[in-house]
């Protein structure tokens, strides 16, 4: 008898348990209670990232940070689809005769989320903070801006130490802080009378004026932001009321959440298999876009045998670009320059194709023709990115055919950074992908080719060419856009025959999204802004909860 009662009790517990689970789910659809969401709270766009992003505009500089910063802060100028910029917080600007002093006139109708008015003093404070801290996007300004002055409430001056033509383009990364609010929240720190410069406060709070404001920051899982209903620039009526950046992108979780309509957009790190399978689900489509990311083979120009341009060209001929663009990075486009086609200043510069005979001919012309076997080429691929191993193996297979020895080396990211600091430790070939931080050719030239900035994972080709450095400096200091573009093109012409690095593919970023109730214009190639983070710019996304 006791056994029967115990059995019945167990069965009752199980039934209760699943009834409880079921209740949560059904409630969810009705939007009434535990685990559920009301129609109002369904007006949300949720997307995944690899980790919870840094939301201090003086610290965060990666993709995750950019996706949130562009929504909670206003930049001084706004990037446009064609790579140029348009007035935003700065309604107009002028530059002095010598091209060193830039004067911006600031809008006087913008308020921060705190209610404080946005003034020129806030702009100056933000720039000074970036320069003093030297972190995040500070590097874009630290070598050029000498002095920052708020002339009056609506006028701010940036004085450069040299003529700086790309200043406007880089100002898309100047996210303006509410100086009063930040100053009120200084903690103890290393910045003298400024304490921690508000770092602790800005880790979890915003001090912006952007179209969204931080509602909840959970370092361990997500950032939840709500619409700023008093935003100075009118938002579309269908712009999401809230957005949530989730700091976890495990494939199984992403798939399940998408299929349960608990996630609106996937991240760019999902495998093509995951994206393809989601694309087959009713109400989910795939958006393909290009934000200027190029997959490169960075070649060490100062280490044998890749110090010989013929060996470098031979490597370019060893790559099967069809396999790269169709199989390794599906739907990508063969890159025809080291500058993305989406960037200002792009010019077609090379036309390498997979041709073993030409590769053999180039090796024959090199100074290593007789003893190439004594110089194995080290090809390093970043251990955390398994698809890049395929690139390395592709080179190895082709090199085998012409008697060139290739050592494929799996290298952890931390070691890639360490090795890139000196030419001796940098591999002959490093597989890397990146885009410029601002949509101009100058962004790549400055960060990845100028020998003044050599020694980073982006700049490890060790070109050491004074003429090239001079050309880059000259272009970056040209104020007139057309003239600057002409100089960018000249640099590409100059590099065309040197093959200092091999651009392989303009990466097509693929996102799955809830097409049944979301208009994903932010990533639609027809409207998208080719600057990191803008595929998640919420004012350019529309959501229709009723269609859910």
């Amino acid at each position, binding site marked *: 008898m006791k056994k029967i009662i115990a059995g019945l009790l167990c069965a009752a517990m199980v039934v209760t348990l699943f009834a409880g689970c079921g209740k949560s789910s059904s409630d969810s659809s009705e939007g009434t209670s535990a685990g559920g969401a009301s129609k109002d709270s369904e007006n949300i766009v949720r997307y995944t990232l690899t980790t919870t992003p840094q939301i201090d505009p003086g610290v965060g500089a990666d993709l995750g940070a950019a996706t949130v910063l562009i929504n909670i802060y206003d930049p001084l100028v706004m990037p446009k689809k064609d790579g140029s910029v348009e007035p935003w917080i700065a309604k107009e600007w002028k530059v002095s005769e010598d091209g060193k002093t830039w004067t911006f006139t600031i809008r006087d109708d913008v308020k921060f989320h705190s209610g404080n008015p946005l003034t020129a003093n806030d702009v100056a404070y933000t720039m000074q903070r970036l320069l003093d801290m030297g972190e995040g996007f500070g590097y874009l300004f630290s070598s050029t801006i000498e002095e920052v002055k708020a002339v009056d409430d609506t006028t701010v001056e940036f004085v450069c130490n040299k003529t700086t033509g790309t200043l406007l383009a880089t100002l898309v990364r100047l996210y303006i802080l509410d100086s009063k609010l930040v100053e009120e929240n200084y903690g103890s720190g290393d910045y003298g009378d400024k304490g921690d410069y508000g770092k602790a406060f800005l880790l979890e709070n915003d001090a912006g004026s952007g179209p969204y404001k931080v509602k909840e920051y959970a*370092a361990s899982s997500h950032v939840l932001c709500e619409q700023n209903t008093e935003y100075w620039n009118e938002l579309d009526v269908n712009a999401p009321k809230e957005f949530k950046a989730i700091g976890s992108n495990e494939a199984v979780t992403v798939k399940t959440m998408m299929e349960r309509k608990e996630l609106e957009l996937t991240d760019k790190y999902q495998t093509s298999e995951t994206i393809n399978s989601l694309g087959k689900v009713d109400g989910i489509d795939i958006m393909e876009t290009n934000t200027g990311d190029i997959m490169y083979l960075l070649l060490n120009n100062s280490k044998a045998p890749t110090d010989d341009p013929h060996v470098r060209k031979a490597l370019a001929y060893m790559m099967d670009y069809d396999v790269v663009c169709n199989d390794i990075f599906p739907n990508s486009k063969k890159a025809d320059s080291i500058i993305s086609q989406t960037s200002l200043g792009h010019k077609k510069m090379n036309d390498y194709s997979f041709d073993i005979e030409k590769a053999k001919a180039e090796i024959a012309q090199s100074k290593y023709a007789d003893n190439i076997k004594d110089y194995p080429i080290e090809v390093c691929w970043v251990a955390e990115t398994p698809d890049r191993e395929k690139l390395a193996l592709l080179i190895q297979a082709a090199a085998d055919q012409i008697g060139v020895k290739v050592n494929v080396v799996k290298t952890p990211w931390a070691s890639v950074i360490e090795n890139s600091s000196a030419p001796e430790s940098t591999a002959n070939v490093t597989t890397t992908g990146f885009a410029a931080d601002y949509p101009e050719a100058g962004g790549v030239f400055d960060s990845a080719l100028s020998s003044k900035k050599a020694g980073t994972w982006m700049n490890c080709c060790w070109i050491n060419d004074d003429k090239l450095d001079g050309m880059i400096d000259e272009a970056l200091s040209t104020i007139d856009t057309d003239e600057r573009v002409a100089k960018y093109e000249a640099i590409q012409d100059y590099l065309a025959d040197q093959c200092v690095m091999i651009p392989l593919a303009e990466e097509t970023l693929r996102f799955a999204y809830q097409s049944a109730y979301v208009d994903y214009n932010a990533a639609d190639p027809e409207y998208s802004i080719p600057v990191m983070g803008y595929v998640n710019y919420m004012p350019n996304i529309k959501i229709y909860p009723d269609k859910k």
Partner: protein
Amino acid sequence: MSLLKSILKRLASALVVLLGLTIIIFVLMRIVPGDPARLALGANVTEEVLEKYREANHLNESLPMQYVYWLTGALRGDFGMSAVTKRAVIQDITDFAPATIELVLWAGFPPILAALFLGVTSAQHKNKWQDYLCRFLGYIFVATPTFVFAVLFVLVFGYWLPVMPTIGGRLSPSFVIPDITGLYVLDALLGGQPQAAWDAFLHLLFPALALALGKTMQEARITRSSMLQNADKDYITMVTSQGVPQSVVNRKFLLKPSVIPTVTIIGMDIATMFGNAFLVERIFNWPGLSSYGMTAILNKDTNAVCAVVLIIGLAFTLTSIAVDIVAMILDPRMRQKRTR
């Protein structure tokens, strides 16, 4: 008194173990490639900023000096700043640890009853269908990695039968509960919100189940074999021959000595869950310490890794001491052995 003495001895040796652990992990984290300053601040910062960071974090000092700085900080509860979250590591741990503790508590303790029940049932019905079923399930569950259960639960209860609450997080957004212990089910109950407690429990259920299944079956198997071993002993034969009913024999004379090996295994299982929960935490987007530690390792976040390893080591050591105490309480012979 002998029990107290034994505990004190165990605590003293635990301190030495923890000290050794910190030395090993600190040296390992410092010698693996990658400039911690560059990794923390990114590729584009100037050498001046990097130098300032190295100076502030004593990275220019010799390795032993760096360890001394780290250890003195750690003793004050200051583990330095995390290179990933840019916050004080202790603040991160305070935020992340309760989620893992709650997960481990639910995955560790309630299944003990299930393990004992299955183990005893299996032993009592040796070579009958109950025994075969328990053993069959035992083989399958023990052999299946934890993450497979996690993926399976997400697939079955999250996708096919959408009965699982929203994946990610520990509580539905519609609830706000007081932050008392950091353990959501308990906090919700203490705050007088049974609905929120139920919601938190549902969020916990499948991650805890995924973590517990394999270990529970392992514990059941050990209980079974221990029961069977003890059943053949002379004192059991004697008690049975004196006409003591079988249920009393089982409960009073057989179960108690038979659970000692199980208790030891349970302790170790609970302790290892702290470090091994990362895959489950990843899959369920559970914001716990293991997941935090994993991210720290991948990003060579030295301060965070050292702190997480120390905390997990501490949990492991304390659990094993607790297991010893329980074993000593259960079996007086062990107390005598320890103090001899």
